Protein backbone atom coordinates (compact mmCIF):
# COMPACT_ATOMS: atom_id res chain seq x y z
CA UNK A 1 0.00 0.00 0.00
CA UNK A 2 2.72 2.42 1.02
CA UNK A 3 4.74 1.52 -2.06
CA UNK A 4 1.78 1.99 -4.37
CA UNK A 5 1.07 5.37 -2.81
CA UNK A 6 4.71 6.35 -3.24
CA UNK A 7 4.63 5.20 -6.87
CA UNK A 8 1.44 7.19 -7.49
CA UNK A 9 2.96 10.25 -5.84
CA UNK A 10 6.30 9.97 -7.65
CA UNK A 11 5.96 8.17 -10.99
CA UNK A 12 9.41 9.45 -11.99
CA UNK A 13 11.62 9.68 -8.87
CA UNK A 14 14.66 10.91 -10.81
CA UNK A 15 12.61 13.68 -12.43
CA UNK A 16 11.30 14.68 -8.99
CA UNK A 17 14.86 14.94 -7.68
CA UNK A 18 16.02 16.81 -10.78
CA UNK A 19 13.22 19.38 -10.52
CA UNK A 20 13.94 19.94 -6.82
CA UNK A 21 17.65 20.46 -7.54
CA UNK A 22 16.89 22.86 -10.42
CA UNK A 23 14.57 24.85 -8.15
CA UNK A 24 17.21 25.14 -5.43
CA UNK A 25 19.83 26.17 -8.01
CA UNK A 26 17.45 28.79 -9.41
CA UNK A 27 17.06 30.27 -5.93
CA UNK A 28 20.85 30.44 -5.68
CA UNK A 29 20.73 29.83 -1.93
CA UNK A 30 19.89 26.83 0.15
CA UNK A 31 17.31 26.83 2.92
CA UNK A 32 14.92 24.18 4.29
CA UNK A 33 11.86 26.06 3.02
CA UNK A 34 13.28 26.21 -0.49
CA UNK A 35 14.08 22.49 -0.40
CA UNK A 36 10.51 21.66 0.67
CA UNK A 37 9.01 23.88 -2.02
CA UNK A 38 11.34 22.33 -4.60
CA UNK A 39 10.18 18.90 -3.52
CA UNK A 40 6.52 19.97 -3.83
CA UNK A 41 7.22 21.20 -7.38
CA UNK A 42 9.07 17.96 -8.07
CA UNK A 43 5.98 15.98 -7.09
CA UNK A 44 3.32 18.18 -8.70
CA UNK A 45 4.96 18.75 -12.11
CA UNK A 46 5.49 15.04 -12.96
CA UNK A 47 1.90 14.32 -11.86
CA UNK A 48 0.51 17.02 -14.16
CA UNK A 49 2.72 16.04 -17.10
CA UNK A 50 2.28 12.27 -16.57
CA UNK A 51 0.27 11.80 -19.84
CA UNK A 52 3.36 12.82 -21.83
CA UNK A 53 5.63 10.33 -20.05
CA UNK A 54 4.00 7.04 -21.05
CA UNK A 55 6.86 4.77 -20.04
CA UNK A 56 10.37 4.80 -18.71
CA UNK A 57 13.34 2.99 -20.25
CA UNK A 58 13.39 -0.58 -18.96
CA UNK A 59 16.77 -0.33 -17.33
CA UNK A 60 19.30 2.41 -16.85
CA UNK A 61 22.77 1.95 -15.38
CA UNK A 62 23.71 5.25 -13.75
CA UNK A 63 27.28 4.18 -12.93
CA UNK A 64 28.05 3.48 -16.57
CA UNK A 65 26.19 6.69 -17.49
CA UNK A 66 28.50 8.76 -15.25
CA UNK A 67 31.58 7.27 -16.94
CA UNK A 68 29.98 7.89 -20.35
CA UNK A 69 29.34 11.55 -19.42
CA UNK A 70 33.01 12.02 -18.45
CA UNK A 71 34.12 10.43 -21.74
CA UNK A 72 31.81 12.73 -23.71
CA UNK A 73 33.00 15.87 -21.89
CA UNK A 74 36.61 14.91 -22.63
CA UNK A 75 35.74 14.25 -26.29
CA UNK A 76 33.97 17.60 -26.54
CA UNK A 77 37.08 19.43 -25.37
CA UNK A 78 39.47 17.52 -27.65
CA UNK A 79 37.16 17.78 -30.66
CA UNK A 80 36.64 21.51 -30.06
CA UNK A 81 40.36 22.10 -30.51
CA UNK A 82 40.30 20.02 -33.71
CA UNK A 83 37.38 21.98 -35.17
CA UNK A 84 38.90 25.31 -34.15
CA UNK A 85 42.03 24.20 -36.02
CA UNK A 86 39.95 23.25 -39.08
CA UNK A 87 38.13 26.60 -39.02
CA UNK A 88 41.36 28.56 -38.82
CA UNK A 89 43.58 26.59 -41.20
CA UNK A 90 41.58 24.63 -43.80
CA UNK A 91 40.48 26.79 -46.76
CA UNK A 92 36.96 26.35 -48.11
CA UNK A 93 38.14 24.71 -51.33
CA UNK A 94 39.96 21.97 -49.41
CA UNK A 95 37.11 21.31 -46.99
CA UNK A 96 35.60 17.84 -47.42
CA UNK A 97 32.16 17.77 -45.80
CA UNK A 98 30.25 14.50 -46.04
CA UNK A 99 26.98 12.84 -45.15
CA UNK A 100 27.36 9.58 -43.29
CA UNK A 101 24.65 7.08 -42.46
CA UNK A 102 24.90 5.32 -39.11
CA UNK A 103 22.82 2.13 -38.95
CA UNK A 104 21.32 1.98 -35.46
CA UNK A 105 21.26 -1.02 -33.18
CA UNK A 106 19.68 1.00 -30.37
CA UNK A 107 15.90 0.81 -30.23
CA UNK A 108 14.94 2.79 -27.10
CA UNK A 109 13.96 6.38 -28.05
CA UNK A 110 15.85 7.74 -25.02
CA UNK A 111 19.02 5.96 -26.12
CA UNK A 112 18.74 7.24 -29.71
CA UNK A 113 18.13 10.78 -28.42
CA UNK A 114 21.22 10.55 -26.26
CA UNK A 115 23.34 9.22 -29.14
CA UNK A 116 22.11 12.01 -31.44
CA UNK A 117 22.85 14.61 -28.76
CA UNK A 118 26.32 13.19 -28.19
CA UNK A 119 27.07 13.26 -31.92
CA UNK A 120 25.99 16.89 -32.19
CA UNK A 121 27.87 18.03 -29.08
CA UNK A 122 31.15 16.46 -30.18
CA UNK A 123 32.20 19.04 -32.77
CA UNK A 124 32.75 18.11 -36.37
CA UNK A 125 29.59 16.03 -36.53
CA UNK A 126 25.92 17.05 -36.48
CA UNK A 127 23.14 14.51 -36.35
CA UNK A 128 20.69 15.77 -38.95
CA UNK A 129 17.86 13.30 -39.36
CA UNK A 130 16.44 9.91 -38.51
CA UNK A 131 15.10 7.52 -41.13
CA UNK A 132 11.32 7.21 -41.20
CA UNK A 133 11.25 4.02 -39.15
CA UNK A 134 14.22 4.85 -36.97
CA UNK A 135 16.75 2.30 -38.22
CA UNK A 136 19.47 4.74 -39.22
CA UNK A 137 20.77 8.14 -38.27
CA UNK A 138 21.93 10.76 -40.75
CA UNK A 139 25.09 12.58 -39.65
CA UNK A 140 26.84 15.49 -41.32
CA UNK A 141 30.62 15.65 -40.95
CA UNK A 142 32.47 18.93 -41.31
CA UNK A 143 35.77 17.66 -42.67
CA UNK A 144 36.78 14.08 -43.31
CA UNK A 145 38.55 12.04 -45.93
CA UNK A 146 37.46 8.71 -44.44
CA UNK A 147 33.69 8.78 -43.76
CA UNK A 148 33.58 5.06 -42.95
CA UNK A 149 36.10 5.51 -40.14
CA UNK A 150 33.94 8.26 -38.59
CA UNK A 151 30.90 5.99 -38.74
CA UNK A 152 32.79 3.10 -37.13
CA UNK A 153 34.09 5.39 -34.39
CA UNK A 154 30.56 6.56 -33.57
CA UNK A 155 29.40 2.96 -33.42
CA UNK A 156 32.20 1.62 -31.26
CA UNK A 157 32.85 4.63 -29.08
CA UNK A 158 29.31 5.83 -28.30
CA UNK A 159 26.66 3.39 -29.50
CA UNK A 160 28.27 0.33 -27.91
CA UNK A 161 28.48 2.13 -24.54
CA UNK A 162 24.89 3.39 -24.80
CA UNK A 163 23.75 -0.16 -25.54
CA UNK A 164 25.30 -1.25 -22.25
CA UNK A 165 23.71 1.70 -20.37
CA UNK A 166 20.23 0.93 -21.70
CA UNK A 167 20.75 -2.86 -21.82
Amino acid at each position, binding site marked *: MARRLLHWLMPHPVLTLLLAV*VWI*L*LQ*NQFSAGMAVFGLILGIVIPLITAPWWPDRPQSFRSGKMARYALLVIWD*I*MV*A*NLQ*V*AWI*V*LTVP*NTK*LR*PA*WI*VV*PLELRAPEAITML*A*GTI*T*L*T*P*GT*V*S*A*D*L*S*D*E*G*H*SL*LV*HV*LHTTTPDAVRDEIKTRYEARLKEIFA
Partner: protein
Amino acid sequence: MTAAILGTYLTAALLLIGAGFASVAAIGLLKFNDPMTRLHAPTKIGTVGIGALLLASMLHGFLSGAPSYHELLIMGFLFVTAPISANFIAKVNIHQRSCDTPPAPPQDETWSTLNTPKEPGQSPPHSSQ
Protein backbone atom coordinates in the same frame (compact mmCIF):
# COMPACT_ATOMS: atom_id res chain seq x y z
CA MET B 1 46.37 35.94 -0.47
CA THR B 2 48.19 33.78 -3.00
CA ALA B 3 45.04 31.73 -3.54
CA ALA B 4 43.13 34.89 -4.44
CA ILE B 5 45.84 35.97 -6.90
CA LEU B 6 45.95 32.51 -8.43
CA GLY B 7 42.17 32.55 -8.72
CA THR B 8 42.25 35.91 -10.46
CA TYR B 9 44.76 34.64 -12.98
CA LEU B 10 42.65 31.52 -13.54
CA THR B 11 39.53 33.65 -14.05
CA ALA B 12 41.38 35.80 -16.57
CA ALA B 13 42.68 32.71 -18.39
CA LEU B 14 39.19 31.20 -18.56
CA LEU B 15 37.76 34.48 -19.88
CA LEU B 16 40.42 34.56 -22.61
CA ILE B 17 39.83 30.91 -23.55
CA GLY B 18 36.08 31.45 -23.71
CA ALA B 19 36.38 34.61 -25.77
CA GLY B 20 38.87 32.89 -28.07
CA PHE B 21 36.56 29.96 -28.77
CA ALA B 22 33.58 32.28 -29.27
CA SER B 23 35.51 34.33 -31.83
CA VAL B 24 36.65 31.17 -33.64
CA ALA B 25 32.98 30.15 -33.82
CA ALA B 26 32.11 33.55 -35.30
CA ILE B 27 34.97 33.26 -37.82
CA GLY B 28 33.69 29.82 -38.83
CA LEU B 29 30.19 31.18 -39.32
CA LEU B 30 31.53 33.88 -41.64
CA LYS B 31 34.08 31.75 -43.45
CA PHE B 32 32.19 28.63 -44.50
CA ASN B 33 30.01 29.01 -47.56
CA ASP B 34 27.55 26.13 -47.32
CA PRO B 35 24.56 26.07 -44.93
CA MET B 36 25.46 22.67 -43.48
CA THR B 37 29.14 23.36 -42.78
CA ARG B 38 28.20 26.77 -41.45
CA LEU B 39 26.08 25.01 -38.87
CA HIS B 40 29.12 23.29 -37.33
CA ALA B 41 31.08 26.26 -36.04
CA PRO B 42 28.66 28.21 -33.80
CA THR B 43 26.60 25.33 -32.43
CA LYS B 44 29.55 23.51 -30.93
CA ILE B 45 32.61 25.67 -30.47
CA GLY B 46 30.15 28.15 -29.00
CA THR B 47 29.13 25.76 -26.22
CA VAL B 48 32.68 25.30 -24.96
CA GLY B 49 33.34 29.01 -25.31
CA ILE B 50 30.31 29.87 -23.22
CA GLY B 51 31.18 27.05 -20.81
CA ALA B 52 34.58 28.63 -20.14
CA LEU B 53 33.01 32.08 -19.66
CA LEU B 54 30.49 30.64 -17.18
CA LEU B 55 33.28 28.85 -15.27
CA ALA B 56 35.10 32.17 -15.03
CA SER B 57 31.93 33.80 -13.70
CA MET B 58 31.49 31.08 -11.06
CA LEU B 59 35.12 31.28 -10.01
CA HIS B 60 34.88 35.05 -9.69
CA GLY B 61 31.73 34.65 -7.60
CA PHE B 62 33.47 32.29 -5.18
CA LEU B 63 36.53 34.50 -4.91
CA SER B 64 34.54 37.64 -4.18
CA GLY B 65 32.55 35.86 -1.48
CA ALA B 66 29.22 35.73 -3.31
CA PRO B 67 29.04 32.14 -4.61
CA SER B 68 26.61 31.60 -7.44
CA TYR B 69 25.26 28.37 -8.88
CA HIS B 70 23.12 29.75 -11.72
CA GLU B 71 25.94 29.05 -14.14
CA LEU B 72 25.55 25.30 -13.64
CA LEU B 73 21.93 25.58 -14.76
CA ILE B 74 22.85 27.68 -17.79
CA MET B 75 25.46 25.10 -18.79
CA GLY B 76 22.97 22.27 -18.30
CA PHE B 77 20.27 23.93 -20.38
CA LEU B 78 22.79 24.91 -23.05
CA PHE B 79 24.11 21.38 -23.44
CA VAL B 80 20.59 19.98 -23.63
CA THR B 81 19.18 22.53 -26.07
CA ALA B 82 22.15 23.13 -28.41
CA PRO B 83 21.80 19.75 -30.20
CA ILE B 84 18.06 20.35 -30.67
CA SER B 85 18.46 23.73 -32.38
CA ALA B 86 21.29 22.31 -34.52
CA ASN B 87 19.04 19.39 -35.46
CA PHE B 88 16.19 21.73 -36.42
CA ILE B 89 18.43 23.91 -38.59
CA ALA B 90 19.78 20.77 -40.30
CA LYS B 91 16.23 19.53 -40.91
CA VAL B 92 15.24 22.87 -42.46
CA ASN B 93 18.30 22.68 -44.73
CA ILE B 94 17.36 19.19 -45.87
CA HIS B 95 13.72 20.13 -46.30
CA GLN B 96 14.48 23.21 -48.41
CA ARG B 97 17.09 21.28 -50.45
CA SER B 98 19.61 24.02 -49.66
CA CYS B 99 22.35 21.41 -49.20
CA ASP B 100 23.44 18.23 -50.98
CA THR B 101 20.68 15.65 -50.84
CA PRO B 102 21.70 13.01 -48.29
CA PRO B 103 22.19 9.39 -49.42
CA ALA B 104 19.17 7.14 -48.95
CA PRO B 105 19.08 5.10 -45.72
CA PRO B 106 20.02 1.43 -46.20
CA GLN B 107 17.04 -0.12 -44.40
CA ASP B 108 14.05 2.21 -44.41
CA GLU B 109 12.21 4.10 -47.14
CA THR B 110 13.58 7.58 -46.70
CA TRP B 111 14.65 10.20 -44.14
CA SER B 112 11.79 11.41 -42.00
CA THR B 113 12.22 15.04 -43.11
CA LEU B 114 11.85 14.01 -46.76
CA ASN B 115 8.90 11.74 -46.00
CA THR B 116 6.13 14.02 -47.27
CA PRO B 117 3.07 13.11 -49.34
CA LYS B 118 3.86 13.29 -53.05
CA GLU B 119 0.49 14.59 -54.23
CA PRO B 120 -2.27 16.33 -52.30
CA GLY B 121 -4.81 13.85 -50.96
CA GLN B 122 -2.42 10.91 -51.19
CA SER B 123 -1.20 9.56 -47.88
CA PRO B 124 2.54 9.00 -47.35
CA PRO B 125 3.80 5.41 -47.53
CA HIS B 126 4.42 5.31 -43.77
CA SER B 127 2.04 7.41 -41.74
CA SER B 128 2.55 5.52 -38.49
CA GLN B 129 4.32 8.42 -36.76
